[in-house]
């Protein structure tokens, strides 16, 4: 099974690299959003109750990373949906590999792409004056949470593709990604959110994932937020992979 998972992940990565229009939106859109936020809302940091940060960019980097990783999940789902629409998926299920390998191949690729996404935003942040307060250890912490979360978002995308079976439906979840992200504390501190968004944010795993990455970037290395972020990412990933495998099995069972 290992060889099949690696082979399918390699294919997904190679195809992503060969289709720049697939990968580019994952970083371009969050970059533009980050630029607009930082450029236009810099004074947000002066609000009473806003945590003390060196700059709004330091605070917003984690939000941009989370947004990019979510879009990575959409892209992973679209890739699987296109395989279903084009018939390549039939080739995979007519082969003797374990069914779970089909899901894991796509999910693993999403995790690898997440490394690139996280690295891109960290380099971008440093280039525009942000400072990673946690140093090298902080970078590793952000990478750890980012990769696990990216893997999970990929699994969610795959699950939706397996249920929807067409790329346009998967693309249709794009706006929902933003709604879910806006009802988290990714863009603004939870204590500055109005009700009921603040309550929703408290239960939204994206809040913990974004704050887990924000802590070493904007503040300092601290075990609590890191572990909460990692746990939220890992829990979400485990659930998403399980749901994807169930979606695949359900599809096979209904044949």
């Amino acid at each position, binding site marked *: 099974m290992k*060889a*099949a998972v690696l*082979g*399918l992940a390699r*294919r997904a990565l*190679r*195809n992503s690299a*060969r*289709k720049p229009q697939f990968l580019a939106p994952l970083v371009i859109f969050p970059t533009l959003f980050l630029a607009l936020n930082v450029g236009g809302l810099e004074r947000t940091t002066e609000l009473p109750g806003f945590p003390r940060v060196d700059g709004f960019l330091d605070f917003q980097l984690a939000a941009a990373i989370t947004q990019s990783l979510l879009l990575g999940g959409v892209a992973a789902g679209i890739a699987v949906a296109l*395989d*279903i629409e*084009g*018939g*390549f998926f*039939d*080739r*995979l*299920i*007519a*082969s*003797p*590999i374990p*069914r779970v390998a089909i899901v894991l191949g796509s999910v693993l690729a999403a995790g690898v792409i997440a490394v690139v996404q996280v690295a891109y935003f960290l380099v971008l942040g440093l280039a525009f004056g942000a400072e990673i307060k946690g140093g090298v250890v902080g970078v590793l912490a952000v990478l750890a949470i980012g990769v696990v979360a990216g893997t999970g978002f990929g699994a969610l995308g795959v699950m939706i593709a397996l249920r929807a*079976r067409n790329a346009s439906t998967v693309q249709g979840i794009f706006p929902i990604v933003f709604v879910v992200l806006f009802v988290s504390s990714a863009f603004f501190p939870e204590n500055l959110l109005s009700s009921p968004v603040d309550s929703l944010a408290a239960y939204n795993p994206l809040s913990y994932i974004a704050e887990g990455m924000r802590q070493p970037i904007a503040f300092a290395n601290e075990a609590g937020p890191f572990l909460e972020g990692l746990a939220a990412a890992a829990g979400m990933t485990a659930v998403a992979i399980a749901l994807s495998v169930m979606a695949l*099995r359900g*599809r*096979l*069972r*209904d*044949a």
Partner: protein
Amino acid sequence: MAAIEVSALEREFKGGVRAVDGIDLEVQAGEVYGFLGPNGAGKTTTVRMLVTLLRPTAGSARVAGFDVATEPAQVRRRIGVALQEAALDPLMTGRELIQLQATLHGIAPRSVADRGDELIGRVGLSRAAERRVGTYSGGMRRRLDLAMALIHRPEVLFLDEPTTGLDPTSRLTLWEEVRRLRDEGTTVFLTTQYLEEADQLADRLGIIAAGKLVAGGTPAALKAEVGRPHLDLVLADGADLAAAREVVASFGDRRPASDGCHLSIALEHGAAEIAPVLRALDDAGFAVAELELKQPTLDDVFLEKTGEHLEGGDEPEPEPAGGPAVLG
């Protein structure tokens, strides 16, 4: 030993459409079995059940000795599949796809190189192997699909309409490859809507129409079963076709005419009746512009069994509700 055994196989889709309706057939190891029928007859649905992509709603099927419903993983290890639409990733090169297919069949990377090269050469794609599949022609895609289906040396190869839409040269190349596979002892289950293809390639044939197997046997036996040659006549312009039909009625069965002055008769007593038919028409005042004596073809077999020409059916096969469905 039978490579494929099918008993009372059925597939009914949501909405009550029965695409395959109680098929029984047996394919011996090492033979090329042609599954002939028009579009929408149930060929692809049957293949999808045999390759474990679709669950039968009734009946049973064993491929390479394993039940497709209860032992699908065993079946998948032993079959090669080239489906109707060569579903290839356009972003990958031919060689990359061959390597991926080998990985999916558990073949170690170090041992796949030679086999991959051999197959790529065999289907005439050596010069295109490093090109992305998106740049391939339809014929090249089909040949690559065939090479991929053969990477693990399958016991049974399923080819679903492998030459549909191909130019004559590509079609002949694929025919050659199928013959070579038969010579090597591979069992081939080939669906086609082309009479000539079935006639040329199949050791035995099954003819399917509206989900039912209406005839089976060797092409020669099936044609012999229909037996009688038929006489095609083209009457001079303005002839009263109905009256001409009455004149020739005593010589054999009238057959459906393709146009207003075309008359076709299955001769009761063979070629010896050509002269009497012409005399009778002449006596009745009909002028014959053209005539041709035709030996039975598979289309005649199809006509005999279904009352229609093979070219007549073009209803698409129903898609499973909610998209393709597969076995676990």
